[in-house]
């Protein structure tokens, strides 16, 4: 079954987080910050369908020690996601992208 645009955008957001240095996805203590994608979940990404057919993406991440400049990392994440969404033909579907930093984590430490 083909994935919905919401899930496709969530996957692109997951890739953007993985490709950005200094951050790692965070699912939170109760594991609620995730998007179901078939048999798995996309960690640290909450994709919300908006009424106008757009999708709001909330990225939940931990900063990796030493903490990078947070606003610059947020810009990098957003730009990366916008570019990949446009390349996938989903640029007009991407709504606001919120970025929340939840913790500072040592390199290699799990979520």
């Amino acid at each position, binding site marked *: 079954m083909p994935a919905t645009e919401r899930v496709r955008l969530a996957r692109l957001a997951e890739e953007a987080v993985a490709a950005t240095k200094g951050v790692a996805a965070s699912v939170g203590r109760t594991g609620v910050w995730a998007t179901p994608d078939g048999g798995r979940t996309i960690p640290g990404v909450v994709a919300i369908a908006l009424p106008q057919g757009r999708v709001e*993406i909330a990225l939940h991440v931990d900063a990796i020690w030493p903490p990078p*400049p*947070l*606003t610059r990392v947020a810009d990098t994440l957003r730009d990366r996601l916008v570019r990949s969404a446009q390349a996938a033909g989903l640029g007009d579907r991407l709504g606001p992208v919120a970025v*929340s*930093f939840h913790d500072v984590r040592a390199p290699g430490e799990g979520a």
Partner: protein
Amino acid sequence: MVAALRTLAGLIGFLLLVILALAGLAAAVFSLQGGEETLSYHNLAHLLHLDDLDAELGAWLSALEADGPTAAIAALAGAGAVVLGIALLVGALVPTRERLIILRRDQRGDVAARRRAVGQAAAALAEQSRDVMSAKAKVRPRRRGAGGNLRVTANHARTVGNREVAAAVRERLDALADALSLHVRVRGRVPRRGGRVR
């Protein structure tokens, strides 16, 4: 081990609350009638085989049933218990939401950080300052708009003054404070004798 004890404490607390709720319900139901009727306190005491207690409290229960100051105080206490119960239910059931520090807010979406993340970064920067042995940082987000207040306590050696240390730490935190719109307050102090230093 601690997790198991926490679960046990939660379970016992829950059971005690259930018992308390059932006792309250019984007291409420058996207050519907007075005298020796079925739904009276006297009958409740009889059903629970507490006849001696009923004999002791009989006069007081009669005063409670009749109009008067005892009944008024009991009504007030009952209303207070109901309000307290509702408050406890709200406290137990309404989820808390941690206030995040808004770093930037625009139509592209919010950029926010949890207080702990910002506090850890600030403490680490403060500890990079010469003469600082350890630092603690507390962050409080602004109620409206971006940024917040950052309070840093830096423990340092006796050989330097509080002001010098505070100035050095403030300098270290300048970039972070500018980027996150934080109002910074730094306090230098010499740890107490025997005090722990991380």
